[in-house]
């Protein structure tokens, strides 16, 4: 694939990791054509990594899942890490590359991210000064795994891929640290996921009893979870009366109830329409919690009112300067 003229190759992929994709703030404005939003599952950590690297908050980053990639620096380069701690080190020195910080890699150094014993979060975000340079497709540089386009040829990284960075902006790379008090790492491990009730529409919403049941239990996160959504494990919720089969629009954060009583939490790659009854919708400020939910981990849900949801997002944006 051709790369933009003002970009430079910065990394060669030596090992791709479990699922490493290029993501940005998402593919806004094509959902009516069935195009999922995509973008970082944890938009807060993406923004933090970008801020630390001197980029705009939605610049393209690497989203690394559970087991990160091994990449070779082809040139001296500034990166920043945020989100889950996947045990990143620089080789051959063995220098630790912690999350919530910017780091400089020298040409010839290797970054490896073998995963760690840390049980919190499942997605690490690696930003490079200038942002990863890939073509804009339908208004976004995010990888659409479902559609097979965007990012790097519409797929996860592979061994041998070369990654380019765009020109660095006016901010000094690594010099623009977020204000103190900003969440540099993961959400608090005990933080509940705050939800708003589903709209009370005959063909869309589940019952109030379903919402109460969702908020009463502690839910496990099934290993059968991916960028499209989380499948929750717990006491089955009594399904609502079956709808007449029509699908309607949904957004990331929508919590659906399958016919067997299992709640599904939709994430960034979810389809744009769905036919299951909706129990609740995760507030925008807490999408990072569900986006970091680790298979085998647990989640709790808590109802919240709209003014509080709005306040939570306003505070988050202020600290991140979105």
């Amino acid at each position, binding site marked *: 694939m051709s790369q933009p003229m003002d970009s430079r190759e910065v990394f060669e992929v030596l090992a791709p990791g479990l699922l490493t994709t290029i993501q940005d703030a998402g593919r806004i404005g094509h959902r*009516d*054509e069935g195009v999922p939003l995509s973008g970082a599952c944890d938009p807060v950590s993406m923004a933090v990594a970008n801020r630390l690297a001197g980029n705009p908050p939605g610049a393209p980053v690497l989203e690394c899942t559970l087991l990160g990639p091994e990449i070779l620096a082809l040139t001296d380069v500034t990166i920043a890490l945020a989100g889950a701690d996947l045990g990143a080190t620089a080789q051959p020195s063995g220098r630790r590359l912690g999350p919530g910080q910017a780091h400089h890699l020298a040409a010839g150094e290797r970054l490896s991210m073998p995963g760690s014993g840390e049980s919190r979060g499942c997605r690490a975000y690696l930003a490079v000064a200038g942002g990863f340079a890939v073509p804009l497709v339908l208004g976004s540089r995010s990888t659409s795994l479902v559609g097979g386009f965007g990012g790097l040829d519409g797929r996860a990284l592979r061994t041998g891929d070369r990654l380019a960075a765009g020109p660095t902006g006016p901010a000094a790379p690594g010099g623009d640290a977020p204000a103190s008090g900003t969440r540099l790492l993961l959400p608090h491990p005990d933080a509940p996921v705050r939800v708003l009730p589903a709209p009370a529409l005959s063909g869309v919403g589940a019952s109030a009893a379903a919402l109460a049941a969702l908020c009463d239990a502690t839910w496990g996160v099934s290993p059968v979870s991916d960028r499209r959504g989380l499948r929750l494990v717990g006491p089955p919720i009594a399904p609502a009366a079956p709808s007449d089969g029509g699908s309607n629009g949904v957004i990331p954060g*929508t919590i659906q109830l399958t016919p067997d009583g299992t709640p599904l939490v939709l994430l960034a790659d979810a389809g*744009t329409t769905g036919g299951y009854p909706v129990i609740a919708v995760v507030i925008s400020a807490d999408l990072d919690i569900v986006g970091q939910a680790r298979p085998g981990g647990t989640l709790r849900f808590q109802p919240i009112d709209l003014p509080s949801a709005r306040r939570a*997002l306003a505070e988050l944006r202020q600290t991140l300067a979105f």
Partner: protein
Amino acid sequence: MITLPTSRILRFGDAAIIIEVAAHAGYSATQTVNALNRELSVRLVGRAGWERPVPGATTLLIPIDPIEPGVEAAIVEVTRWLDGWTRPGEDDPVHESGPIVEIPVRYGGQEGPDLAEVARGIGLTPAEVIELHTGTIYTVAFSGFIPGFAYLGPLPPRLVLPRRDTPRPRVPAGSVAIAGPQTAVYPVDSPGGWWLIGRTHVPIWDPLRTPPAVIRAGLRVKFTSR
């Protein structure tokens, strides 16, 4: 004529609002969703914080920025726009509108491997199935499932049958399929549980093209046999 009660304009979490136009899915609901989509799309062009509406079977969902405008202000705004708005009636010339896209299809054979079974299942000959499928002008109801996958309907009642018991792991791009009261063209290779009756070689989905989908909201579709 249908006037929307304002109670049917509700928030969907803090990042979208949803407008319900009918209690049940079907052709009438689709017509109203499409008319409402046309009305609101014009109003929303270039408005910061509002995304293009997403049509569904019985609703129109509008993703919005949770802070600006925020869902409450968005509901007030849409309610004001739709005050007195009426859906075009059955005898209104707008009712059967929308440009018609013609999709040439090779029915049966290797490209429509389920045609014979579909025909047997409903007691028709394959030629009669083709005649019914090409003899109707379909309306785009909404998209979803995968990028560029548009649900078209309504199918002639004679062709309505449940999905296949076992989905195929890979349905080739361009496959023309039916299931329930709907028909569709698979935009890319994907898993699928619909009955494959033919295939088109028109590239119906290309993300590098504007617009990417040949079959999209506001259009109607006629299949022709090649």
